[in-house]
C-alpha cells in the first residue's frame, strides 16, 4: 500500500491563504490513507476541527472508497456536488495519485493534505516499512527475496559498503546491513552465492508508467462482435 504522512499544516494553510479560500471541502481515501491512519474518517474529522479552529468553514467531507480510482472518485464527487460547489478549495487527504484523480474530477482548486512517502509493507497495525521502490528491473531472484535497491540506504547492488560494522548498517546504525542479510539467507538456503549483480537497467523504469490490460480484451470483444454480425 501507499504510505502517506501528515503534511505540514502551515503549507496547507499557505495554499488556502494564497487563494483567499475561506470554505473548504475535505476528501480522504478508504484504502491506503485509512490503513495508514492519515486520511480516513477519523483524520478528516481532526482536519475539520483544525480548519474550523483556524476560522475556515468546512462545507462537507467524504472518504472516497479508493481515491486513486478515476470512475469511483468522479462518482463520489458528483454525490457531494453541492458541498463542493459551496467550497473555494478542496483538500485531499490521500496520496498524490488520489489528489490528482480528485483534481481531474473537480473544477475547483485541489490541494494535497498529505505527503506521499513510499510503497510500504504493513508490518503490523500502524507500522510500515519500505521494501520495494518499484524499480522495474527486479533483482529479488538473486538476493534471496531481500531488496538491496530499497533496503540498503545507498541502494547498492553489491555490498556491503565499507561502513558495515559488526553486521550493522553504516547509515541506519540500528539495522542490520542488507547485504549481510542477503548473504546469510542465501547461505541458509544453500544457494551458491551470486558473484556480482550487474548494473541496473534504469530504462526499465518507465516514467510515467502506463500499462493497459485492455487491448487484448477489446480485440477479443471486437472479434466476438465481428463473428456475430454475419453479413
Amino acid at each position, binding site marked *: 500500500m501507499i504510505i502517506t504522512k501528515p503534511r505540514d499544516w502551515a503549507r496547507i494553510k499557505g495554499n488556502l491563504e494564497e487563494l483567499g479560500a475561506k470554505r473548504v471541502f475535505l476528501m480522504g481515501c478508504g484504502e491506503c490513507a485509512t490503513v495508514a491512519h492519515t486520511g480516513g474518517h477519523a483524520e478528516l474529522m481532526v482536519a475539520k476541527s483544525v480548519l474550523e479552529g483556524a476560522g475556515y468553514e468546512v462545507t462537507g467531507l467524504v472518504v472516497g472508497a479508493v481515491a486513486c480510482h478515476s470512475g469511483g472518485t468522479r462518482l463520489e464527487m458528483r454525490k457531494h456536488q453541492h458541498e463542493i460547489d459551496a467550497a473555494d478549495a478542496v483538500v485531499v487527504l490521500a496520496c498524490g495519485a488520489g489528489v490528482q484523480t480528485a483534481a481531474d474530477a473537480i473544477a475547483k482548486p485541489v490541494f494535497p493534505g498529505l505527503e506521499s512517502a513510499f510503497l510500504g509493507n504493513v508490518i503490523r497495525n500502524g507500522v510500515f516499512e519500505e521494501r520495494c521502490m518499484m524499480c522495474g528491473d527486479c533483482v529479488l531472484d538473486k538476493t534471496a527475496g531481500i531488496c538491496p535497491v530499497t533496503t540498503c*540506504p*545507498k*541502494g*547498492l*547492488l*553489491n*555490498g*556491503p*559498503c*565499507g*561502513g*558495515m*560494522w*559488526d*553486521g550493522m548498517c*553504516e*547509515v541506519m546504525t540500528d539495522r542490520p546491513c542488507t*547485504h*549481510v542479510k542477503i*548473504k546469510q539467507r542465501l547461505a541458509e538456503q544453500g544457494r551458491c*552465492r551470486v*558473484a*556480482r549483480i*550487474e*548494473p*541496473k537497467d*534504469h530504462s526499465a523504469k518507465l516514467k510515467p508508467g502506463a500499462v493497459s490490460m485492455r487491448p487484448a480484451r477489446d480485440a477479443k470483444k471486437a472479434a466476438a462482435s465481428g463473428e456475430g454480425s454475419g453479413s
Partner: protein
Amino acid sequence: MSRLRDMLDAGEFVITGEIAPPHGTDYSAMLTSVRTLSEVCHAINVTDNQGATLHLSSLAASRVVLDNGNGCEPIFQQTCRDRNRLALQSDLLAAWTLGLENVLVVTGDDPRGGDHPQAKGVFDLDSTLLIDATRNMNEGKDMNGAPLSGATDFFIGGALFPEAEPWEIALERAHQKINAGATFFQTQAITDTEKFARAAEALKPTGAKLIAGVLLFKSPRVINFINEKLAGLMVPDWITDRITSAASPLEESIKIATEQVRELSQIADGVHIMPLGSDDAVVRIINDAGLA
C-alpha cells in the same frame, strides 16, 4: 606508466598519504600539504567530496598534485555517490587525459552524513561495478562494450576494511573487487594488526597489493569523533588510554603510528597515512619508523 604500480610490482614498500581538496578555489593550503607529504610519500590520495562534504573535485586537485608533487603521484578518487555511470566514465576519461594514472574507486558516504544532507545520493553503480567499468576502459571499451577512441591504462584500486565482521562477507567483497579489476587495496585505519595479517594472508593467492591505513589518533576529541561519526571504526581501548593519559596527545599519536607503521611494514605492501591535517607528522613517522 604509474610509478606506484611499478614499485608495487617490484615488491617495493610504498608510502601513501592523503589530502582533502579545499572547500573553494584557493588551493594554497593544499599545495603546502602536497609539498610536505611529497618529501616522504610515493603517492597521495586526493579525496572526492570526502564525508559527503563539498570540496574542489578530485580531478582538478589531482592534477595540482601531479604538477607539484615532484614525482609523488596523485591517486585520483572516484566515489559512486555523486555521479551516474555517464559522469563517472566521463570523469575517468578526463582523468586519463589529464595524466592521472592511479584511481581509487570507493562507494562513498551517504549524503545524509555530509554538509548537503538534502542531496540525492546517486549510487548508480557500486564500487565493484565502477571498478569493472574502469577495467573496461583499460581494455578500450565503455561499460556497454562500445569501443573507445583511445583507451586508458589506470592502476585500479579499491578500499578494504580488514577489521570488518562478518569477515567472510568482507573477504568475499574483496574477491569480487579483484575479479572486477582491482589490483591494489588501501585499507581503512588499522587498529588490530592481527586482523590485517588475516586479510593479507587470505588475499595473498590473488596477488592483490595491500596498503595498510594508519590514522593519527591526534587527541581525545578526534577519538570521540571517530567513535561517534566515522562509520565502521571503533578506536580500541589501548589507543584511547594512551592518548588520554599522555602529556602530549599529538606526540603520543605519532609514537603509536610509528609503532604501527613498523609492525605493518613487515606484512603489508605499503602504508597509507592519514594525518588529519598534521602533515609534518607523516614525515616524522616515516623517518622514525626507519622507512625514509
